[in-house]
């Protein structure tokens, strides 16, 4: 089992766990965290790919750059989601998203 | 200027543009709207006359082909058959506009009414001018939609319910038509209307498909043509104001269906192929059943407009019936009935509207003695009714005559029995109305004091004039049938293009 495979399997495992969490955890914070973690799992996979693609000890910089960009994107989205969640909590006092299509 | 290209388009736009402009006017702007309406319908009339002259006297064909899809085009073509419906709708549009202006005086939502009214005519003209199946389909569906606001114009719950039923029927029919057309085009490529048919080359390989497609097309068209059992929307739609009913029945909706059947049988399949596929006899049977059934139902209705509606159900199927018979006289009968039925039925609806408007008469039982105070209206109604029965020299007689001859030509003598039964049933539901109107004792509450019994109190000329005009036309169409500019002569030209000698 190569190093790449170990990291990659860890990444997809994390991804699957986060998927499960997003669905089964109702607390908003946990959902947001799960999403954030999901991003991290993909970044982990990308890093693994970067190292798999190394040429002469230089890791592939493209996945590297993708991770950096992705992190910022993920951070932004997470932060925005958190701001919304706090506002939601302040408005309703709830920590879970209400269901329904808004038709009521 | 290339008239051949522009004329059909101007024909369309001469009602489309006024429609759009009218929508921007306010209800109170009576004169701008009226002037626009009348000048537009006048213009259309002149154009129609010009086209008729060009086609009939000069032997021209006006054709406008516009790219539509990559392999399809919108084809507008003026030839004798399209001229029939064009002429009918331009003339009747003009007359109905005058009538509607009088009828809707001071009633709300006139802007909406006249806007959709003009759109409705645009769609009908489009249907008439359609030179291929897809163009036909486009305007056919457009017609379904633009008539909806007219049907629900009164805005009462009943009107809205009727409107929903109407929409469901017509859109459902549109779906059948659409799938039929697509199927046909998948097999045959773009289908143009050519006298004698264009898809004979499919006969060998796709016989079963062609039969199913034919059934789909006829079912789709049959909804608008009110073929039993797809006719139920028509009596319901009678809730609409009189000018709408008049135009729906005489020109627009039912005629679109019937015209479509004519096109499909003559210009898509062609008589020969239709006969070989064996689809004509079933069509004739269905049409015959509709003719009888509509008449029988009409007997049981006592609301004037509903009775007229069932009469339409019955009468429009004459066109389908004639189409299903093979022979020049049958073709003549079917196509000429397109016009004749329109003129006669619009007369009847005009009169029904006059009765409703001037005397609040909606039920046949209330019509007693109405002929005393409104002899002209009643005369017009009588002419229409007799025309429907097929009494000579009215237009209806000419149609029935040719259909009768056609039935013998095509060796289907039983059709004559249908025609006669229908005529007798028509008499049975029209003559009592005529009788009541002329000979019944007037109701006190309607007619007022005895001294006024013989006083003539007709509706205003804006209502009376159109009724008399169409009544006169339905008389002249029969009386002068042999004249070279009569509908019959036009129908003979149409038939000659499509003649097929077995």
């Amino acid at each position: 089992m190569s190093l790449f495979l170990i990291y990659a399997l860890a990444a997809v495992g994390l991804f699957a766990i986060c998927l499960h969490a997003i669905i089964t955890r109702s607390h908003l914070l946990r959902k947001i965290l799960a999403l954030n973690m999901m991003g991290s799992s993909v970044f982990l996979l990308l890093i693994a790919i970067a190292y798999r693609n190394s040429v002469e000890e230089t890791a592939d910089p493209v996945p590297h750059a993708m991770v950096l960009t992705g992190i910022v994107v993920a951070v932004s989205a997470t932060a925005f989601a958190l701001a919304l969640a706090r506002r939601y909590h302040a408005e309703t006092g709830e920590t879970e998203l209400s269901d329904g299509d808004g038709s009521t | 200027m290339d008239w051949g290209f522009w004329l059909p388009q101007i024909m369309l736009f001469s009602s489309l543009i006024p429609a759009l402009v009218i929508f921007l006017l306010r209800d109170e702007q009576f004169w701008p709207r009226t002037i626009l309406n009348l000048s537009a319908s006048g213009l259309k009339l002149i154009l129609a006359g010009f086209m008729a002259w060009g086609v009939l006297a000069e032997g021209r064909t006006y054709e406008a082909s516009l790219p539509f899809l990559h392999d399809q085009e919108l084809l507008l073509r003026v030839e004798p058959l399209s001229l029939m419906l064009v002429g009918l709708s331009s003339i009747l549009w003009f007359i109905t506009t005058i009538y509607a202006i009088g009828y809707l005086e001071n009633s709300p939502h006139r802007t909406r009414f006249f806007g959709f009214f003009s759109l409705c005519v645009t769609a009908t003209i489009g249907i008439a001018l359609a030179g291929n199946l897809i163009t036909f389909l486009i305007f056919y569906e457009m017609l379904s939609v633009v008539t909806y606001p007219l049907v629900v114009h009164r805005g009462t719950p009943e009107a809205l319910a009727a409107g929903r039923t109407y929409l469901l029927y017509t859109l459902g029919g549109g779906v059948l038509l659409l799938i039929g057309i697509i199927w046909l085009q998948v097999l045959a490529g773009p289908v143009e209307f050519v006298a004698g048919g264009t898809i004979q080359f499919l006969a060998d390989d796709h016989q079963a498909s062609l039969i199913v497609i034919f059934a789909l097309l006829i079912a789709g068209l049959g909804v608008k043509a009110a073929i039993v059992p797809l006719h139920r929307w028509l009596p319901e739609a009678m809730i609409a104001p009189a000018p709408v009913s008049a135009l729906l029945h005489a020109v627009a909706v039912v005629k679109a269906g019937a015209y479509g059947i004519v096109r499909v049988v003559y210009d898509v399949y062609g008589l020969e192929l239709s006969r070989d596929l064996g689809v004509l006899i079933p069509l004739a049977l269905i049409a015959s059943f509709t003719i009888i059934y509509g008449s029988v139902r009409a007997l049981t209705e006592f609301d004037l407009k509903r009775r007229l509606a069932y009469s339409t159900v019955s009468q429009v199927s004459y066109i389908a019936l004639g189409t299903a018979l093979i022979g020049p006289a049958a073709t003549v009968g079917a196509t000429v009935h397109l016009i004749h039925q329109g003129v006669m039925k619009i007369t009847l609806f005009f009169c029904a509207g006059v009765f409703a408007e001037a005397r609040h008469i909606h039920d046949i039982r209330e019509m007693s003695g109405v002929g005393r105070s409104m002899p002209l209206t009643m005369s017009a109604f009588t002419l229409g009714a007799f025309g429907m029965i097929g009494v000579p020299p009215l237009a209806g007689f000419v149609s029935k005559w040719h259909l009768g001859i056609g039935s013998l030509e095509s060796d289907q003598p039983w059709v004559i029995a249908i025609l006669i039964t229908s005529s007798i049933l028509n008499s049975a539901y029209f003559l009592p109305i005529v009788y009541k109107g002329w000979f019944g004792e007037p109701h006190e509450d309607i007619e007022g004091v005895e001294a006024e019994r013989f006083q003539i109190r007709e509706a205003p000329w804006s209502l009376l004039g159109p009724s008399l005009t169409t009544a006169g036309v339905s008389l002249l169409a029969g009386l002068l049938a042999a004249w070279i500019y009569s509908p019959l002569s036009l129908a003979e030209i149409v038939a000659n293009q499509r003649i097929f000698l077995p």
Partner: protein
Amino acid sequence: MDNRDPLSNPGYLVRILSMVLSAGLLAVLIAAVVDLGDEPTGLTARVMEQIDQSGVSHPPTAVLLNFRAYDTWLEVAVLLLAAWGALALRQATRLPEQPQATSAGPVLDWLVRLLVPLLIVTGVYLLWLGTNAPGGAFQAGAVIGAALVLLRLSGYRSVGLLDALWLRGSLLAGFAGFLLIATVLFLAGWTFLEYPPDQAGLLIVIIELLITWTVAVSFVALFVAARPDPDDLNTESEGGHG
């Protein structure tokens, strides 16, 4: 609707189903990963070929700020949007003061005084490092932003109380600077997002500086704006029209 306590997690059925489906997906993902194998594919070689013309020597930075500068540019826009969205949740155009005005206490005070300069220095260092080693504007911005948040948390209430215009300016700086440079060069006839080889390094540094500042302020803004302003709340549960 069901009668479950709305605060509890979904029922067992959902959990089991979710687990089964996630496991299934995991299995497929494993298959995919295994299928990938160990053969390198990637663009390492190409990056190394071209890095000399990029104006920086650290490959990821070259990719980020030159080869794939477009990504980076849009990413700054994402950050801007997030900060902005968070700010737009509030009616006030200015950020609120920290409501709790207590003193942080002597230990924290000392720690903050120690840490903040350190963090700022670290940030600047990271920025400088970015051109030839791991590091760069985002890392630097994050660290500086963290320092500012720390300050605010420990009672320096006015931190982040930028004037509305300045706040906007700071949030925009990174993206706008990037945009300005790119547009001006584009109008001057260069390919869009292409740096003139001689000035590439300089321009990248300028952009990095701006981005660092924007990132820092954005983080603070996000942090501060996330706290809802009681005045903004919809008092009734009518939910409005929308």
